[in-house]
């Protein structure tokens, strides 16, 4: 019994790493731009597709493939602000009603997902794992891919947190999230920071997509369920709070993994939705959040 729990715990950690890469990026966008990126799952999906193209079509090594996938999605993410959000902001002012931006990213999501469907077809594409073999623990066997996910996700998140903490542009991102007017007064160009933020967040999503591709398969809607769960995660952690998103990701992933012992697996997704609704009713600011709804 204990071994079963430990096994699921490890699974929860691995999944939590993916959720965290995804949710932290989503939170970053919300914290800095006040926009919920409904299309985040599509960037995740493109990460998987990019890896597929790199490894299966072009025959590149997994490492190169992963870097390429992240870079491609980063570049795509850089385009979102100047092309889509800036024109809307210009027309409406920064304090435009939030729902309008939601509708914008919702439309982007539909556009991207169906474009993927049209371009690549709806089949579930298989990507070979980056690492073969695995770690043989007494009670369970942890595949190499899962270990890779754990390590890369941890490194990626650590790198992000260090960047935000110490690097000049990372500090600028934090400054804009906290106090855009003051940030401008010290010379931080808002538009460029917005662009960078979305690019970074999408890069994380793309990385996650590439890491999990061997396990999830690659198909247009692969990011959809994750997007909705990520909403639940960001609300649990407190919208706009990066650490909260990280912690909440691990919590939700672990609970989901362990829940298999207790409830039928079809209802697994309901955990995230139920948690979200519960949090919104009981404590809308989430675990760590300050922004009030």
């Amino acid at each position: 019994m204990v071994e079963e729990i430990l096994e699921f715990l490890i699974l929860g950690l691995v999944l939590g790493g993916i959720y965290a890469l995804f949710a932290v990026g989503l939170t970053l966008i919300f914290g800095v731009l006040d926009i919920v990126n409904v299309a985040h799952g599509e960037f995740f999906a493109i990460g998987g597709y990019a890896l597929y193209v790199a490894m299966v079509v072009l025959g590149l090594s997994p490492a190169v493939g992963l870097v390429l996938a992240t870079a491609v999605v980063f570049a795509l993410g850089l385009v979102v602000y100047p092309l889509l959000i800036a024109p809307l902001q210009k027309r409406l002012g920064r304090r435009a009603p939030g729902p309008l931006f939601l509708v914008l990213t919702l439309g982007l999501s539909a556009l991207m997902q169906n474009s993927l469907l049209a371009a690549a077809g709806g089949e579930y594409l298989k990507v070979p794992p980056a690492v073969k073999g695995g770690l043989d623990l007494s009670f369970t066997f942890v595949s190499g891919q899962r270990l890779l996910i754990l390590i890369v996700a941890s490194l990626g998140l650590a790198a992000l947190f260090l960047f935000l903490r110490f690097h000049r542009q990372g500090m600028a991102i934090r400054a804009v999230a906290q106090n855009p007017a003051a940030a401008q007064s010290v010379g931080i160009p808002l538009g460029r920071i917005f662009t960078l933020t979305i690019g970074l967040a999408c890069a994380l999503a793309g990385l996650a997509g590439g890491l999990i591709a061997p396990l999830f398969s690659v198909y247009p809607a692969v990011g959809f369920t994750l997007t909705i769960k990520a909403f639940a995660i960001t609300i649990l952690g407190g919208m706009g709070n990066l650490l909260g998103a990280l912690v909440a990701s691990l919590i939700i992933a672990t609970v989901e993994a362990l829940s298999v012992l207790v409830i039928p697996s079809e209802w697994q997704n309901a955990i995230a939705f139920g948690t979200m609704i519960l949090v919104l009713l009981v404590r809308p600011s989430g675990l760590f959040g300050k922004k009030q709804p």
Partner: protein
Amino acid sequence: MSGLRVRTLAIAVLAAAGLAAPLVWSHPFVLHVAIQALIWALFAASWDLLSGYTGQVSFGHAGFFSIGAYTAAILTKVAGLSSWLGMTAALLLCALVGLCVGFPALRLRGHYLALVTLGFGEIVQLIATNCENLTGGPFGMHDYGTFTGLPSDPLAQRQDAYVLVAAIALAGLAIMLTLTRRTNAGPAFRAIREDQILAGSLGIDTTYYKLLAFTLSAGFAGLAGALYAYYIQLVSPTVGSAAASALVIGMAVFGGIGTIWGPFLGALLLYSITEGLRFIGVVYNLIAVGAVMVVFVIFVPRGLAGIRLHRRGRQQRADRPAADAAS
């Protein structure tokens, strides 16, 4: 006659002609598209009542549509109820569910409200998929029949179904328009959309009106779902999917959020166009809807409705209130 009278008359004539056209033409496919377009039009108008007009943005509206559809199907299949009773039950049940969803939503704004309604939609879909005994599981339900009292000849059946659906959809639209243009509810809804706190301080019972909006909007969405169930004669979980919710929002954006008749018209047009262009490929019409949403939100924010009503002067920018800024 005054200019306004002429315009109203012209619109009425055009509308009547437009409605009569599928009947006169009587091509089965045209009727098929027209009927579904009307169902989506009612659905879109119901969404707009809550989200565009009252400002309570719902991202899971297909959940109400789905509940309405399943209610109608289940009641007719299990209890043998006529479609009239089925539709009424769907309307009432969804109104009740809408009321229930409205309560917790009272405390939420903007993103949070949209996300919780999204969660609601997902839960409805989960229940529809997993409670096989009730809903038939992933494959849904299909053997409950169609509208009661329709002739058995396929073409005549479709023609009568068209008249029925058109009448109900238009009645629904009329009710919503009357409510918002002729009663106190209209200004109250708009006030809530513009500035909830201000509305409250002016003595508007925001709780009552928000719940009213939720109830009515959900009810009509459910009615649309019931119409769908009886016409298509197949109800499955995808009816309540997030994609369907997104689709109805796209139609509303196309038609013009906040006008109610705009989304109705927008849905009619967009559905007809995308279905009519099906020969291009099913996916491309979905891409088109996504593109429409993105482009219209940025460049044509008032949708089709805004193009027609041409106002002079520039749109007021939604900047900080003046009192806030002046010192």
